[in-house]
Every structure is written in C-alpha cells, then in structure tokens.
C-alpha cells in the first residue's frame, strides 16, 4: 500500500543495531552538507523534518524509547523509515542470561522482573518492517552479513534481506535498500536517505541495481589492490586479471571529497562486497609474496 505523499512532512528515522562495530553510526554522523543535523532541523529542501530514534543518540531513553518503538510497530505513530546497522543473530550465543534483546536504549534503566525476557531484535525488526515506509540496511553486516558471517566467526547471522525475505516490499513500495561498505561513507547514506524520501513523496523514483543498492552511487568500479608501497613486489599488477567491485568511494572520497582508500594510496579490500574478508583480502595484502 502506498501512503499519502502529503503525510510525509515529519518522518522518524528508527535506527536499530545488530552485531556490528558502531562504525556506520559514526559514518552517518561524519556526513555534512547536508548532515543528519540538517535533516533533524528540517533544513533540506523537499526532505521531511526527521526525528532520529537511535539507541545512543535520540532524546528519548528507557521506557519512553521502547514506547516509541511500540507505537511505530503498532502503526500509531508518524511514518518512519527503518535502518539496521549490524548483522542479525539467528540463535543466541548465550547459555542463558540477557542477550540479543532490546533491554534498553540510550541508557535506559528498566525495572527487571524476575522473568526477564524482552523480545529479540529480529522480532522488533519484523514488526517494524511491516509498518515502515522504507527499510535500509547500512553497512556490509546488515546488507550481507559482513565479518560476523565470515568464516571462522563461529556466529550464525542473517542479513536484513535474509530476515525479511527477498519479496519484502515496504509501505512505500520499496525492497530492502542496501548501502554496503565497511563502513560506507556517511554521505552515501544521507544521500540515499534523501532519495528515499523523494521517492516516497513520489518526486523521483529510487533507482536501485540488482543488488538493491542505489545504482548511481555503486556503479563505479574499483579494483581490490594492496596499498601503495615503496618496494617492488606490490607494483605491476595486471589489472585485466583482477575482479572489480562496485563502490562510491572512488568518486565521493571518504568525507567531503577527502581521502578514499585507493584514491590516496591505501588498499581496496572490496569491503562493499559479500564475504569481503573471505574473498578479497588476499588481493589486498601489502606483501604479495605471502599469498
């Protein structure tokens, strides 16, 4: 069902975190012109004023925070976009005790009854996704599983698309939008979010590629390569023999056009790709003699 575009002047951004490193949150905070603060203050033309509901950044905490999630999940709050950072654990690596559940947020203090068993993250995500205007996976963990899913990790995790299924469609008519990268540049997230809003308002349709990534950002190719090193073994690659990965960084840089992996002499480890530490790391070793 498509929601009415005129109801989209105020939108909540519900940010949930799974198993990850918090790096995507930092990337999001780093972006500016516009940044998340501009969205919060309603400074971006045609984008709604955003209320950030983030476990460590939002104004609400504790029972108030859980109340916000509950209202969103039961469809009695303002329209919202759901974002997941981190991978979703499938079974709990925990022999009893509190784990993988939303116990609290932003420093909640919740009174704990003796039988403390709050709903799991996956359950919250499923409930919220059913009501969300759009659902975004930020980072390679939420998009593909990332390091928690890599070989040796001993964890069993899912990506957001694994959980919601490939046929999932949000209220705004969109599949799960993937913004992979470990981490992706914050600007890429903010830009995609704004385009999601424009799509929801029926201004510009969102252009996603077959991996459900924003096509215009991820159509640039980059070669996984070692860093620039000043000794012979690392130079002279035959690029025609090398795979490429799609990544916005060669064009956007890291922040405000500064930095950006291979642009400044660093390595590309193919961090936007599925299974990147299992597939591409070998191509990025600074000492190829070891390969």
């Amino acid at each position, binding site marked *: 069902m498509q929601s009415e575009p005129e109801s989209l002047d105020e939108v909540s951004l519900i940010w*949930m*975190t799974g198993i*990850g*490193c*918090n*790096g995507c949150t*930092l*990337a999001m*905070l*780093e972006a500016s012109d516009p940044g998340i*603060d501009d969205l*919060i203050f309603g400074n971006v033309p045609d984008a709604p004023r955003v209320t950030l509901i*983030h476990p*460590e*950044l939002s*104004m609400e905490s504790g029972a108030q925070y859980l109340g916000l999630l509950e209202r969103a999940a039961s469809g009695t709050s303002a329209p919202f976009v759901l974002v997941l950072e981190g991978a979703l*654990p499938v079974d*709990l*690596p*925990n022999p009893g*005790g*509190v*784990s*993988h559940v939303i*116990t*609290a*947020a932003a*420093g909640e*203090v*919740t*009174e*704990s009854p003796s039988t403390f068993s709050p709903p799991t*993250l996956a359950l919250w995500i499923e409930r919220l996704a059913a009501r969300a205007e759009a659902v975004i996976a930020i980072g390679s963990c939420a998009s593909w599983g990332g*390091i928690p899913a*890599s070989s*040796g*990790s*001993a*964890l069993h995790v899912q990506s957001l698309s694994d959980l919601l299924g490939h046929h999932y469609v949000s209220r705004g008519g969109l599949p799960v939008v993937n913004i992979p990268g*470990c981490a992706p540049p914050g600007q890429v997230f903010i830009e995609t979010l704004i385009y999601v809003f424009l799509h929801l308002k029926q201004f510009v349709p969102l252009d996603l590629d077959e991996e459900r990534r924003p096509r215009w950002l991820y159509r640039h190719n980059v070669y996984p390569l070692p*860093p620039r*090193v000043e000794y012979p*073994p690392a130079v002279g690659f035959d690029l025609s023999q090398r795979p490429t990965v799609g990544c916005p960084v060669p064009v956007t840089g*890291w*922040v405000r056009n*500064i*930095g*950006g*992996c291979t642009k*400044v*002499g*660093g*390595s*590309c480890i193919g961090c936007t790709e599925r299974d990147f530490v299992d597939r591409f*790391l*070998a191509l990025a070793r*600074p*000492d190829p*003699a*070891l390969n």
Partner: protein
Amino acid sequence: MHSRHGRQPAGDHLVFRSLPIQFDSYGRAQLRDEDVPEPFDFVIEARRQRARQREQFVEQSRGRAGFRHFVINPQGSTTIPPGIIVALDLDQRRILDAQAEGGEYSPQELVIINRKPSDAVTISARTRGGAGGAHTIAASLALEMAGGITPPPLAIITRNLGSCGEMIAECIRHLSLHTGPDYSEEVFARSSPAILEVARRTPAPGAAIHGYDSIGDILQAFNRLRGELCLEGLRHFRIASEVTTLVFGRSIHPTTLFPGGNGIQASRETFNLLLGRVTALLDYAKKISAVWDDLIEFLYEADPRFRRLGELPANLISVGLWEDPETYDGSYANCNEWGARRLSTPGAIVNGEKRTDRLTDLNIGIEEFVDSAHYAEWQTARFSADPLSSPLSPRHPWNRETLPLFANASHSDTAADKISASGGDARRRHTWLSAPRWDREAMECGPLARLWVNALNVYNNCEFIDVVRGGLEINIPKGQQEARRLLWRIPERSNALERNRAAACQIGYAGMVAYASLLRAFDCLRHGETQMSNPFMLPARSIGAGFWESAGGALTHHVVVRNQQITNYQIIPPSEWIFSSRDASETPGVIEAAIHNTPLTEDFTNSEDFTGIDILRVLRSFAP
C-alpha cells in the same frame, strides 16, 4: 637518552604485589619461588570473602519494600548490550550490587586465526568503529614486532597524526553526544530541579574563554542534539574525522596502514590541510576544557556527593601511544626504551602509587580470566616465558585461546570440539567479555589513566606538554583564540566527573601532539625524508605484541605466527578492562566497583520517577 632497559625497580619498591614475579639485581624478572608447581594458580581469599558478604547482604535486603533490580544499558546497543544489572534499595537510596551482563561478542579473534598475518590489520580494525585506527596500528605493531620491521620516520609520524585525529574525534563525540547531555538542563529539570535553579544564578568563572555567562547557560547548551555545545561538538567531531581521513584514507577502519608503513603520499599539501584543521581543534580544546572545569567545580560545590559518583581507587593502566620516530624499532627487546619515549607514556598505578612505567612489566602482568564469561578455560599454555625470559602466566594473552561457549554449538564445531567437559557451571557465566587483570587488579583505563600516568612518569617527551608538580601543563599556541595554558591536576580521586574532565583535557593534549608531529613532518619533508614504507617479510614463526591506546584506553594485540599463518590472536580492548565482570578471586570489574560506590543524587519519591541518571553518568563517564 638514558637506557631504561636494565633499570631495576628502586629499593623495596615492588612492581608486582600479587603475582609471584620479582626482579634480580640486573632488573630481570623471575619467579619468586621456582619450586612452586603452579605459581599462577592462586586466588585471593579476602576478595572472595568480600564478594560473599556482599551477596549475603543483597540476599538479606531482598525482602525490603524498596528492593529493586534494574537493567541498565550504557551505550545503547540494541542487541548484546553491555548491560548492567543493579540491585538497589530505593528506600535507603543505596546501591547494593552491580553485575556486568551481556557484553559484546567480537568474532574478530576467531576470524583472524588461520589467515595470513597482514589480514589481522584489516580484520581487527573492525572490532570497534571508533577505534579502527587504534586497532589497525596495534595490529601493525604486533606484526612489526613479530617480523622485526621498522617503518620510516614519516610513516610513524603520520600514524601518530591519524591516531590523534581519532582520539580527538572520540573524546568530542563522548563529551558532546554521550555524557555531556547527562548534565543538561533537561536532565537536571527532572532529576534535581534545585541544582538547576542554583546553576542559573551562578556566574561561570570561565565566561571570558567559553562565552557562557552562567552555569545554567552551560547546562542548556548540553541539551541533547539541540544544545549549542552538542552541535558545536558534532561540527568539531567532523573536523577531527577529516584529520584522520587525510592520513589514513578513511576515518573508520583505515585502509592505508600496514606493518612497515602507510600508503599515503607524503605531500606538503596534505600536511598543510592538516595544520588548518588541527589549529581549529586546538581553539576548540581551549574552550571545551574551560566549560568542563566550570561545570565540574560547580557540581562539587552544589552537591558534594558528585565527588563520589563512580568513585574508584586509582588503579590505572595506560600502555601509551604516539611513537618517537627516532627510538621506535618495533622490537620487544627495546620496548621499554621506545615506550618511555612515546608522547604519551605507558605505566601502571595501583591505589594511587606508581608501580611501573615499563612496557615489559605491563605486558607480563596481564592475565585474562573467563570465570564469569561465556568462554571455556584453555588447557595448554604455549609460553612459560616472554622473549626476554620473564615468566608468563598461563592466562597471559600469548597463552590464551578463545573458546566460546555457545548455547547451541552446532555452528561452531571446531570451537565446540575443543571445549572441555569441565567448561564450568553455566549459571555463573553471564558476559561475553573476558576479564583482564594486571597484577590481579581490575584496572581503569582511558583519558584519566593516560593523563595520570604521564603526570607521574615525568618524561616531558612533547615540547608543548610539561609535567609540573602534581599535574600537566599543555601549552596551546594562539589560533583564532588567544594562546592558553591548560592545567590538569592529579585529582583527589578517580570519579565520573574527573573522567570527563580528563577527556576534555585529552583533546588539547592530543591536539598538541598532532601539532608537534606536524612540525616534525615538515622537517622530514625539508630533509627529503619522504619514504613512507619499508619492505618486510614476516618470518614463518614468531610472536608479537602491539600496545596502543584508543580513546577508551589501553589496547593490546598479541599474535602467534606459525608456518606464515596466524595460529593465535588475542585482542584486549578497553571495553574489556572496563565492562568485564568478576575474575577467579571475585574481584569486581571496574564498572561494577564504580557503581557500588555511587550515591544517588537524584530526587525521587518512588520507583516510577526513579531515572537512574547517576548510574548512567557513571557508565557513560568511561570514554567513549
């Protein structure tokens, strides 16, 4: 430079009080008694006793009307939270007990095993978003030690610079987005309206520096995500991230660093871009230190109980960071020398008393306990001594094996296979963080530990930072703001507010290290020293350790390489020092002890209007 390598602990000064290690007349470490069969296999009975008394006390209080259990999540991760379960008596306004639960399971240690050594740099970076640079450097150091690799001076200097950017960004984020709002107008309006009233009437002594006329204005500026100080912090967080990005290619999980060097081009342009940003951050440092000084002194005055918020005995550890390019050679044999030349020096302090400033002592004193964590005890200890023949505990990270105990082990056959039947009783295991201890003490780490260690070490390695009697002086030159000398004094105690003050001061400290590093970088360029990496080959078989600090505190990486593959990798991040739970002797973890000591300052009449803000202030005082 004096050689500190052979220096012995002076007089009857003991480095280790609990561990059975002593030093001979050449300063070499040895076991106190060679004939004791398992010298490290002991527990400290008195602590177990105290723990039992506390448990009994909690049991007795259970029947009271005011008895409550609360679950608290400090960082707000919505899964696997480093949650704390706190038992309180609300009628008596007392905290009875605190237990660190959950913690975050980091798969990195297991993912790195069986890979090529340089992969550790990339994978370990992803342990923590805000400490990717610190992990990358610690992994590079561990491999440099294993491989006998020394990067060229300019590469070392850029490593320092990027690390300063990350440290500053994290301290700013911590103060403006996390714990700053704990002291905001909106929070006080609910928790202690009387204090807010006084604050509004109290002029701010540092108004000329920071521009806020009253303390009330400062509190208002800390309102979450709307207050001026929060938004100004966000802007400067971004500037600091640009500093990191300019030298590391990206601010989150850098991709330019590797053992032996840094992939960026050393250009004058890069360093000029850095200089502009560092100067802006230094101006901010002058202001933000004055803000926190005013706020903290006001709170001490308004309600002396703030002095006891999160109070701990001064058990502090810092492994130091920011290499001196002339001394650093990556080797373990010389690590006490290059450690002592770092721009923030290493050291351990127990009960306010300096125990050591040598990296080797810090290293051999570390043990990891898994008694309350979801890990099995490991059965074999590979190393009974470090490369200098100093004794090592079987619980030392070079010996530890990561053996997670999963509820459903079907996905981790290899790990599960290794878990012995004596895995321990599952009821007591309640966290994913193993408990690191130094000389069997739970040690606090972070900006406060770093400044304190430097003040007691008296090395004066940075030309702009002076050790003065009882503290540090940071001389910040004129930028857009006048030159200012930040003064940091060793506080009477370690508590929540002193941790925040130290984090504010750390911005100026790291800023001046960046400034000093830039001057050296320009020097290198003038002399044509532009080389950014040295060739390396890792030996097929070796061990190494990397010691570095993230904003949150001490970070160690220990690696064992066999057949050109990593066979063991151990990471002890600051979060394990802070958020871990009890060890074999039932020594409470840092966060648990800090909560035990916390008075409840907030106004409340019943459990419904109890917000627990004091506990949150303690939790969030551990940066970041």
